[in-house]
Structure formats: C-alpha cells, structure tokens
C-alpha cells in the first residue's frame, strides 16, 4: 500500500487516509488543529489544563498542545493518581519527564487524598466493575484540579474509539440525556463549578493515537490499565473495532449521528444543577456521586 500523498510505503490506512509515517504525523496534527478550530475549543489567552496520565494518548495531546499553544496560552498538566501499583507509578514518572521536556508545569491529585483509599484498596473492598468507581472519582478530580489551577478549559485525550463507545453504551442503556452531553466540547450546562472539557482527538482513532506516539518516539508504556477491559465497555470496544475493520468509517459515522441528534435536541431542557452539600461542586443530586463514593469508602 502506498501513501496517498507521496507514494512511499504506507504505515496506516484508516478513515483519515492511507499515509506514510511523515504524512501521517502531519495529517494527525492537522486533524487535531481543525477540530480545535471548528469547535472553538481553545481561545487565545485561555489557561488550558491537560489531563495527563503519562500514557500514550495524553502525552501525544500534551505534545501537540504545547507545540501549537504554548506561546498564546498558559498550559498546565494535571494528573490523577488512582493508586494502581506497578502501573500508575510508572506512567507518572514518564509524565514528569515529558512535562519537563515540553516546559509544562504539572500538578498531581490522588484518590488516596480524596477518599483515604487507593484504587487497589477500592477494588479490595468494593464489589463490581472497578471502572465505574474509578470513572466517578477521575471525572470529579479532573474537574476539581482544573478548577484549582483556574483553568478555562480542560483538555482530555479522549479519541474517536472512546467517544463511539460512549455513544453506543448510552444507546444500549437508553440514556439520551447522557449521550447529548458528549462531543468535542463536553458539558451542556454553564456553571461556575464546571470547567468545560474539550476533546481535540475526537476524530482520531485509538490506533492512530498510538501510532502517532510511536512515530514521535514518545516513550509511553504500551500496556493497558490492569483493571481495564472488564464488563460492558470492554465488550463494546471490541465490537466497535470489529465493525471498523469490516466497514471503514463506522466510528466516525456513530459520532456524526450523535452530533446530529445533539444539534437537533434542546440540550438544556429539564436539567437543573444544584450544588453538592458536601463539596460545593455542581451536581444533579443533593450529594454528588464522588462524595457518595467517598463516604461509602470511609465508612
């Protein structure tokens, strides 16, 4: 297979093109920048917090954001330490190395500080799929961290696979309300306690993101979280990759369909945001999910 631009041997053939290494890197960066421009994700002068685990996706995001926005914006890296021994401790060392290399300050927030327990502890005392508790705490702490560093936006490295999985999961669970909160600019309710989340990699696949990190010599650990792949999301993820292989463009089409539904829906209808009586951050209920979980773990 040859690169569609220069006829050199291709390294990848996806919905975004059949390309050699150099042209793939160029295309990857230009799609990221087009997404930022189209959805007005970053404005000049804003403080952008990059949610950075030290893994392949977030290091690639930090690389591009610092390359193109360091002169016009304040960039800060925030890391959530779940407390997964043998995994997060290693990626955090890599995160520190890359922040130093790109000249970006970083801050670390941990589950242990918030709940008194690490993720390894939580899996020992709590039944069910670890990812559900982890997701609640991570989302909460990313917003908390972004608020604390006074960020205008928090950039996450969620990619096309993550988003397509979210759309399908919400459809299967008949949760349209949650589905229409997805998109490049996440969150539909403006509230002082929410730092808007942006997803510059929305139209790039997991495979492309991984390849971009490899081709740029980003020395990330290429092993997944030891708790990943369980349950519903793991199943949906495998099926979506199978769809994409058989029908190129499936993931993009899933996301485009969601965006059309989102555009035609009154997204603010019926949603009332309260403040959590414990932490003061925005919550649909009187007590936010993260505080509920913290109290459960502390009892």
């Amino acid at each position: 297979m040859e690169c569609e631009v220069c006829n050199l041997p291709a390294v990848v053939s996806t919905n975004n093109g059949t390309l050699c290494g150099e042209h793939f890197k160029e295309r990857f960066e230009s799609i990221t920048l087009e997404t930022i421009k189209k959805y007005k994700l970053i404005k000049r002068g804003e403080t952008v917090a990059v949610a950075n685990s030290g893994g392949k996706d977030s290091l690639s995001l930090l690389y591009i954001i610092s390359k193109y926005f360091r002169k016009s914006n304040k960039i800060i890296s925030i890391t959530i330490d779940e407390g997964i021994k043998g995994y997060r401790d290693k990626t955090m060392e890599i995160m520190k190395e890359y922040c130093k290399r790109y000249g970006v300050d970083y801050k670390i927030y941990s589950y242990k500080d918030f709940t008194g327990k690490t993720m390894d502890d939580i899996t020992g005392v709590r039944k069910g799929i670890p990812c559900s508790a982890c997701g609640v705490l991570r989302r909460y702490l990313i917003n908390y961290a972004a608020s604390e560093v006074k960020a205008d936006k928090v950039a996450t490295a969620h990619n096309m696979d993550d988003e397509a999985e979210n759309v399908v999961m919400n459809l299967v669970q008949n949760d349209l309300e949650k589905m229409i909160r997805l998109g490049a600019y996440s969150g539909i309710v403006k509230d002082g306690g929410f730092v808007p989340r942006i997803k510059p990699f929305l139209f790039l696949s997991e495979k492309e993101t991984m390849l971009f990190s490899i081709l740029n010599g980003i020395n990330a650990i290429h092993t997944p979280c030891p708790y990943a792949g369980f349950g519903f999301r793991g199943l949906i993820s495998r099926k979506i990759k199978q769809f994409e292989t058989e029908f190129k463009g499936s993931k993009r089409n899933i996301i485009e369909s969601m965006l059309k539904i989102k555009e035609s829906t009154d997204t603010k209808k019926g949603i009332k945001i309260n403040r959590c009586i414990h932490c003061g951050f925005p919550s649909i209920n009187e007590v936010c999910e993260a505080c509920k979980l913290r109290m459960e773990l502390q009892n």
Partner: protein
Amino acid sequence: MEVKLKNVNFGEKAVSLSSGSVKELIEKLDLNDDSVILIGKNGRIYTKDEKVDEKDEINVIEVFSGG
C-alpha cells in the same frame, strides 16, 4: 512460512502462515486491523494488505483504551 512474533502479553512465539499475508496473521492472532500495530525488526510498520517478510520478527502491539 513461519513468522516470529513478540508481544507484551504472550511473550515470543512463532506462527505459520499459508498465504504469508498480514491479514492472515491478524486473523490467526484473533485480532483485527483496527486493534493492532505490527512493527518489523527494522521498524517497518505493516498494513493489512501486505505480505510479511519471511525472516522478519514482528512486534505485535495491541491497541488499547486509556492513557
């Protein structure tokens, strides 16, 4: 033909291929094109419509969520 493979999960193993195609190799690993990156020992990155070099040793990198 037989091709040598490396992977963080299964370590090292050899797989025999009748057609020698990347597509056959991916199917034998029970993966699909969207879930794997195959890198030869000289850094060559294979795409699914190619043939595998007979003497190559391929690093099988599975695409995973997160990070």
